[in-house]
């Protein structure tokens, strides 16, 4: 435990620049959104106390916005506002709106009617009643709303890294993809601390007596503005092209780190979520993205893979990895899973992915069509010799593979299956496997080597040029370290790749990563 903390501390020291930048971005992002949310929410809340017929619709809409999953809301923003700070701020402020509007409304309507009547009867104008009586008396309730909104925003702001808006989410999601606990904690602990600290500070404000609140009410907007400005301090340097990489790619030796060390590539880089990255490239928000070579969206969005002429991306051959205990428990399992060995090459996989990702066909349908076409399909036997638990990571290709395996198992044995799809990144999936939550899932040799085993750079260098050496190495290591068996590879290589829009790449005559570097350095 002590050692763990030590290394976390070391990690944070080592990455202190990044950590500071991300924290400032996080605070800035939170308060820009909060500031705008207050600017909109407070008047809107006051408005609906005056025109009560609007209170239902306004609170309803704000409530619905609150229930939209955050990642979906961020996704909606991309066609409208692109990627980066703008859509993130808009999405965050939409989340912050409800508590602010609702508490303003509740606070003001909750002011004692006799007090309001007295104010009017003394001869105050509408505005005087609002500013001298209603707002000061509603302030504690309004503050509570702002407090709730702040905590929500600090939390949701971690997702801003999905759309290249920065913040502590870069560490958190990078850490999850990279199986790097220290990285996760380096993002999660400051994020949690921010939430706690802001909540505490606002609670202190809330408890001040009403009289002092008058000065606070004037100082608070200034404070919010100041904190908001933090976001704009760490500004990125600009280059001719803009790259968007996933948090996982950012932290990997066979990703951005390799691009920098082996190619010397210098490009303005935004951290972005895989789910929106391709679309952002298509919409010309980004020029270069880090993708997977078999991704269906490659075809859908008319992108082209740049040739990795210095071979920094190791082979990523997919194969099911299975708990050895499960192989004993389900005697037929290994044979059935190997039915698929060598059956899917790169272009087949890309085509299958295209069907789910772009044509929006269900993974089950794509899986069945594939099996039928390859004469592997057998109707399910509906047996009850136990349940094989299949895992998959949270992207289309893994869903398809999981479906195919599920159909094979049901068709060729009396086992039933349960699929646990959408298990976040590598770390979540692999932890599920080692902790006996699933029996197997499809993994990639490169991921096994670099994200899970993490051997010394020397070993990596010696292995990654060869497909077979990599496979043999992970197979041996997994067996001894984790009692997990790599079965035969399925055939395709879903390696990392840099991609650009076909047309732009052609126009700029960029075919390889070295071309890209030369283009960026030319004046």
């Amino acid at each position, binding site marked *: 435990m002590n050692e763990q903390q030590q290394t976390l501390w070391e990690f944070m020291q080592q990455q202190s620049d990044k950590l500071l930048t991300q924290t400032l971005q996080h605070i800035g992002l939170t308060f820009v959104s909060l500031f705008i949310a207050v600017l909109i929410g407070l008047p809107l809340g006051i408005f609906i106390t005056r025109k009560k017929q609007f209170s239902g619709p306004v609170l309803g809409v704000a409530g619905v916005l609150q229930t939209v999953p955050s990642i979906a809301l961020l996704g909606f923003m991309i066609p409208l506002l692109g990627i980066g700070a703008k859509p993130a701020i808009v999405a965050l402020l939409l989340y912050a709106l409800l508590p602010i509007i609702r508490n303003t409304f509740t606070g003001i309507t909750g002011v004692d009617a*006799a007090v309001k009547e*007295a104010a009017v*009867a003394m*001869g*105050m104008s509408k505005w005087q009643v609002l500013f001298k009586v209603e707002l000061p008396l509603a302030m504690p309730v309004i503050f509570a709303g702002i407090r709730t909104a702040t905590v929500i925003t600090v939390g949701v702001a971690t997702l801003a890294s999905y759309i290249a808006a920065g913040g502590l989410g870069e560490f958190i999601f990078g850490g999850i993809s990279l199986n790097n606990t220290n990285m996760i904690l380096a993002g999660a602990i400051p994020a949690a601390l921010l939430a706690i600290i802001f909540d505490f500070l606002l609670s202190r404000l809330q408890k001040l007596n009403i*009289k002092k609140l008058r000065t606070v009410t004037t100082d608070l907007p200034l404070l919010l503005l100041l904190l908001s400005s933090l976001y704009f301090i760490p500004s990125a340097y600009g280059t001719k092209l803009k790259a968007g990489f996933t948090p996982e790619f950012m932290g990997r030796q066979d990703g951005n780190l390799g691009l920098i060390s082996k190619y010397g590539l210098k490009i303005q880089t935004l951290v972005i979520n895989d789910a929106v990255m391709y679309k952002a490239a298509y919409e010309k928000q980004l020029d270069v993205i880090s993708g997977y070579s078999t991704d269906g969206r490659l075809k859908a969005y008319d992108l082209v893979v740049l040739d990795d002429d210095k071979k920094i991306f190791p082979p990523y051959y997919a194969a099911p990895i299975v708990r050895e205990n499960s192989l004993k428990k389900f005697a037929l399992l290994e044979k059935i899973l190997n039915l698929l060995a060598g059956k899917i090459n790169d272009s087949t996989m890309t085509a299958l992915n295209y069907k789910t990702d772009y044509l929006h066909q269900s993974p089950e349908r794509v899986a069945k069509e594939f099996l039928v076409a390859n004469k592997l399909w057998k109707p399910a036997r509906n047996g009850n010799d136990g349940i094989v638990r299949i895992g998959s990571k949270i992207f289309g290709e893994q869903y398809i593979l999981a479906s195919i395996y599920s159909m094979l198992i049901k068709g060729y044995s009396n086992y039933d299956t349960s699929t646990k799809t959408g298990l976040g990144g590598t770390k979540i999936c692999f932890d599920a496997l080692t902790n006996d939550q699933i029996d197997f899932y499809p993994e990639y040799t490169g991921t096994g080597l670099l994200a899970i085993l993490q051997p010394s750079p020397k070993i990596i260098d010696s292995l990654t040029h060869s497909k077979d050496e990599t496979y043999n190495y992970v197979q041996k290591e997994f067996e001894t370290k984790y009692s997990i068996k790599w079965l035969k590879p399925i055939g395709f290589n879903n390696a990392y790749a840099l991609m650009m829009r076909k047309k732009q790449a052609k126009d700029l005559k960029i075919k390889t990563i070295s071309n890209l570097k030369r283009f960026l350095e030319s004046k």
Partner: protein
Amino acid sequence: MIKVQKLSKHFGKVKAVDEISFEVKEHENLILLGTSGCGKTTTLKMINRLIEPSAGNILIDGKNIFEQSPEILRRGIGYVLQNNGLFPHYTVAENIAVVPQLLKWDKKRTEKRVAELLEKLHLTKDYLSVYPNELSGGQQQRVGLARALVADPAVLLMDEPFGALDNVTRSKIHAEFKALDELKRKTIIMVTHDVQEAFELGDHICLMDQGKIIQDGTPAELLFKPKNDFVKEFLKEQRLLLEFKTSTVKSLWHLLSNEEIKGLGPGILVNYKDDLWTVLERSTFFNAERLNMMNLENKEMKTVSFESLMSAFYQYQKGDSHE
């Protein structure tokens, strides 16, 4: 001073106030009396335009109030609410200074006036920086009254001002209310459902029911010349008490004759203007056998026994009610 002409207020189909007219003379206390829902509060709130009437006119000092901006109008009319309506986030001093602040008085003038009122209302200076929730109900009501009086408005509207107080505090405040010189210069309209309070404080009572004025007159007129059964019924429970309180020695003077009283018990000097209730209280307290009284107009003296006073009262009561 205040003229209300054919005033109506309809809430949908309900006629809360139905074409009522009345008049209040300068420095007079008018009481709007009635059960809840009779329209008395609605009527009151139309006078400072907290409620806009459906029809009718209100003139204050000959000026139509609907031709002024409501804010300006209200700054010239004091208003006291049942639950005092003090601003909880303002100190006592700030609460009282609300209207001067709206009228943009300078600081010194405001402070002086606030201090003056506090003294008149028997609150010490220590209360200036106290918040309303730290005051007792009676104190809160006094501050509410001070707030209404601070800019010395000619008109004062009071909506059940003593309704939330306990009986002891209420009668204490009633006494203060009657003694307060500031109020003697005001034209007051007060809403109450309390018959005793109405008779004690009112120069003039409008008894209302279902949005209409049933009878408009002095307390004595309501008692001794009720217009119909509703008025009789309304006053029935407290009739004797009210009659004692509204009849003065003066009004019975012509029915009293000087007598020789042989008993050796004590005598008391009775004020010519006292009401019978006061006389009754004092004579019981002193166990008096002789009541000595003097007509202040012609200096005529009479000494009577309590029994004679009572029989004069019964005679008066009969005569008046059969008039």
